[in-house]
Each structure stands twice: as C-alpha cells, then as structure tokens.
C-alpha cells in the first residue's frame, strides 16, 4: 500500500491531538507515516506518541536550518522527502502556517491542493474530501485530479483511533536553499498558556461579545465549569478585552465544537462564519431580536451577568 504522509503538529514538547486525527484518517487511505520537522533528539519521543495511532514510519527532519524562517524551508524539506515516493496523499493539520506550506508544496510537486477538509475518505483508489464553504452554508465534496493529493484537515475531523504501528524512525537529510531562508523570524513572544483547551480543538467553546461590557469573568467561569475553551467576537477583540487569537469568525478561528455558547454576541454573518457548523448552539442575549437566536438549539433572553453566574453555580452543584 502507498504511504500517506502526515505532518506532525508538535508544540512545547508534545504531539498535538490533530496529528492523531490525521493518522487515523491516513489509515483509511494507505500506510500512515508521520513526518516530524523538529529537533533531531526529540524524534524518539514523537515516535512513541505517533506509533500508538498507526504510524509505521517516522520521517525525522532536523529543523536546525529550518526554524527561524517562514514556511519556505519546510516546503522544500517536504518536497525532498516526497520526491520519488509513491504517496497516496500528504495530510497536514489545517493551520495558517500549514496552509502556506501546502500551497508552496503543491506548486513544487505539481499536485492539487485542498484546504480545510472536514472529512477525507478513500474512493475508488482516490481520495475524496468534504469541506464546509461559504460561511458554513454549503458542504462540498472534492477530489484532487493531479499529482499527490495535498490536503489540510481541520481539527476535530475524525476521532483518533488507537492502532499499533512500528513507528520506525528514519532520519532524513534535506538541503535548504539560501533562497528559502529569506523571511526571518526576528522575535517570538510565546503566548501565555491559559490552561484551557485550544480553541479550535475544544469540544465546548464559551464565547463572549460586546455584551460582556469587558467583564469576561462570567464567561471564563462558565467555560471552566464546562471544561471549555474561551472565544470572543471581533467587537470584544477590537475593544482590547481579549487578544486576537481568541476571535471566532471569518477573520478569526473557525470552530466546530460539540457545543458553542454565545454570550452577549449578536450573531453577525462574520461571526457565524466561524461557528455555525457547531453541533449544538446555545446563546444568552438580552435582546430577543438578536440574530444569533436564529441559530440556536436553546436560547435564553436575559442579562448574561445574571444568567451566567447562576448557570455556573447550577452546573457546579449538579457536578456535586
């Protein structure tokens, strides 16, 4: 069976969940092989993690010459790895960076590219993807018709399934051109960990908008009671109440959790674009005419500053 390359998402010493989701998908298409671009001495740790999800091989590419620059060196490294291999597909977790890597790689390998797939299936020896488009209003099915399908897959697109793989590490040497090292990362300030789940990966997202008036405490307390990630509308971000990384919507994160709780958010089209494929949607808003109520499975017309603390208390009580 042909190999399926899965680019490993590795942050702060840990393999992130989307990697396991993609390995699970890869198994449907061929033989899963993980690609780890990172410090050579951490390849063994990565192999331990990914072999539990079926990775037969782990191609380890040392990042000494790669980190410190924007996507171009990673695209070159993947091109060199892919060349000469008979691959069923190349899968990358959908992130801004990975989409750019995939874009460059598609041109290098003369292969078709599909971004933000929410499902990937084997179909008659090929690969079919499902995407949610036009602000989540349409679902489309697509396939790559040229070269090796290069697909970026959104988090939560598959439930990770454990399956033993050999996880054999193979160090791969790559040559990075000077031309690829032209956009430099001059400074990086890591974001403070919130201790909450990642917005795009969370099963539950609790968001706040302009209606919070800048006081996110009720939103955060509810999120913690539910084990949820915290999100924000652009109005809340533009007011400086939350950093941009919290923004849900067209120009923020697109989330698709099991449960989305919108608080003090009117439900503008750009916000909907980021959350309307959530499985269950709940809203608290004091305006019964707010468009968000058109989307909800359950809505409360009321002041979030009263409803949320009472709800949090209720939940904590029921949890005992």
């Amino acid at each position, binding site marked *: 069976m042909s190999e399926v390359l899965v680019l490993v998402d590795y942050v702060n010493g840990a393999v992130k969940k989307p990697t396991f989701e993609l390995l699970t998908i890869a198994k449907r298409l061929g033989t899963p092989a993980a690609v780890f671009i990172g410090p050579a001495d951490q390849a063994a740790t990565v192999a331990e993690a990914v072999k539990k999800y079926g990775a037969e091989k782990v191609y380890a590419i040392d990042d000494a010459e790669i980190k410190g620059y*924007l*996507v*171009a060196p990673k*695209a070159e490294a993947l091109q060199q790895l892919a060349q000469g291999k008979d691959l069923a597909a190349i899968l990358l977790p959908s992130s*801004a960076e990975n*989409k*750019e*890597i995939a*874009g*460059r790689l*598609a041109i*290098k390998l003369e292969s*078709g*590219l*599909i*971004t*933000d797939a929410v499902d990937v299936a084997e179909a008659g020896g090929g690969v079919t993807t499902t995407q949610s*488009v*036009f602000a*989540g209003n*349409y*679902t489309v*099915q*697509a396939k790559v*018709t*040229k*070269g090796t399908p290069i697909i970026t897959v959104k988090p939560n697109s598959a439930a990770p399934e454990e399956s033993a793989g050999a996880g054999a590490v193979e160090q791969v040497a790559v040559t990075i051109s000077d031309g690829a090292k*032209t*956009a*430099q990362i*001059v*400074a*990086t*300030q*890591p974001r403070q960990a919130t201790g909450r789940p*990642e917005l795009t990966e969370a099963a539950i997202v609790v968001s706040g908008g302009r209606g919070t008036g800048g006081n996110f405490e009720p939103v955060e307390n509810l999120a913690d009671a*539910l084990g949820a990630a915290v999100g924000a509308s652009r109005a809340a971000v533009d007011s400086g109440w939350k950093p*941009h*990384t919290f923004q849900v919507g067209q*120009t923020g994160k697109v989330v698709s959790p*099991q*449960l989305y709780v919108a608080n003090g958010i009117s439900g503008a089209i750009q916000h909907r*674009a980021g959350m309307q494929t959530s499985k*269950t949607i*709940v809203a*608290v808003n004091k305006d*019964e005419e707010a468009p968000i109520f*058109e989307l*909800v*499975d*359950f809505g*409360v*017309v*009321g*002041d979030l500053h009263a*409803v949320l603390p*009472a*709800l949090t208390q209720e*939940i904590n009580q029921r*949890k005992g």
Partner: protein
Amino acid sequence: MNIVVCVKYVPDATGDRRFEGDNTVDRVDVDGLLSELDEYAVEQALQIKEKRADEEIEVTALTVGPEKAVDAVRKALQMGADKAVHVVDDAIAGSDAIGTSLVLAEAIKKANGGTAPDLVVCGLASTDAGMSVVPAMLAERLGLPQVTLAAVVESQGNQVRIKRDTDTATEVIGGTMPLVLSVTDQSGEARYPSFKGIMAAKKKPLETWSLGDLGIDAGQLGLSSAWTAVEETAARPPRTAGEIVKDEDGSGAKALADFLASKKFI
C-alpha cells in the same frame, strides 16, 4: 519603488441578506464587490506610499476575474492606487488557486516590466474561496520571500518588518524586498474613497489583459485543467428553530442547565 496589490472581486457574502433603508431586502446590487479583506491590502500599500512620500512609489491594483471584476480595481483606484490591471479571459473561469496564482504571477511580472516588483501586497484570504494560499503560491512562483498575515506593517529602505499573531506566539518577521506581503483585518481600517478620489480614478490608467497578453497557454487553465475538482455541493440544511426562554429571577439559568444536562454536556 513599485507595489502591486492583488484584489479579488467576490460575491457579496451579506448580499442576499441585506436590507434597504425601508427594511425590504436589497435585490439591486447583491452581486459582487472588491473583497473587503483586500481593502486592507490596498490601505497598507497606500500607507507605505504616503509614509515614504519623498520616494517615487507607484501602486498598481491587479485583479484576475470576470468582466465585472473591473469594479474591484476601480475601487482600488478610487481609494488611491495609481493604475490598474484587469486580467480577464473566458479560459480562466473555473480555475483553482493554483491556476489563479499562475495568472497573477505572470500579470505581476508584466505590470512591472517583466520582473517581480519590490512589493506584492495581498489580503488575508478571499472571502469566497478563502484558502489563504494565494500569497504563498505567488511567493513560490515568483521566487520571493513571503511575509504573511501582518497585523502591523513597517518598512524602511528595502526592509519590511511585520508583527503578527500566530496560534502559539506573537512574532516579528523581517524580510528584504522584493517580497510578497499579506495583511489581516487587524492592520488598520481601510479608507473610503473620497469624492475627489472617485473623480480622479476616472482618469487613471486601467489596462485589460488576456491570457494571450501574458503568454499563458489557455489549455493550462480553467475548470477542466484545474488540479482539483468539486464533485458535489449541498446547501447545509437550515437549523431547526430551537427553544427560546426568557430569564425571570434565575429561571433562565435553570432551564439552560436542564437543556445542557439533557444533551449530556453536564
């Protein structure tokens, strides 16, 4: 210095839901417009020109799209771009990002006399396809560095520095021109065309090019030559109306907790 701004003509996402002043549905001009995310790209290009007023800087707006797409570059001219190029050819219809980036790359070079300009500025994403891949593809095709997703843009001499937020960090990225820059909607509100700008735009050069003008073989483009194919589309079933309750003395919280419990979230 030469700057080319890539602007896309997109269907208006709010069009079919927009209301007139009298609360009737607007059905007059729901078709398309300059992607609002590309207005930010035009704005940053103009700001660079204004901040470096002692240099000779020319801003060219470029769009690839159908007849009507000329509206996108017209708006860019009204905002303050110096000249515009519209690439239109029946053979382009149905192209994917890979095909579009090929046409854009050739047009960018031609607009600058055959080589890459100092700066190519793009938006964060097109609001229809929204792949956020064209800037990286342009950088790949033009052999340029890419400095993408900028929330803050600074330039000095041939250096460009941006600040951006990624999922894990706030980063400062630096590159040497020529390069491809993309900007987000955090980079600063785009200006509205002034009356003067609208009048001036009518006299600015606007060229229309075909694939032939760019020396691109039409067989490389269009739906049948795309490297991807959409096989099926389906409108998402509308959400069924949910239950809405009014909060009275804490009843809302209880009802919501019951709902969440019924769905096994608590």
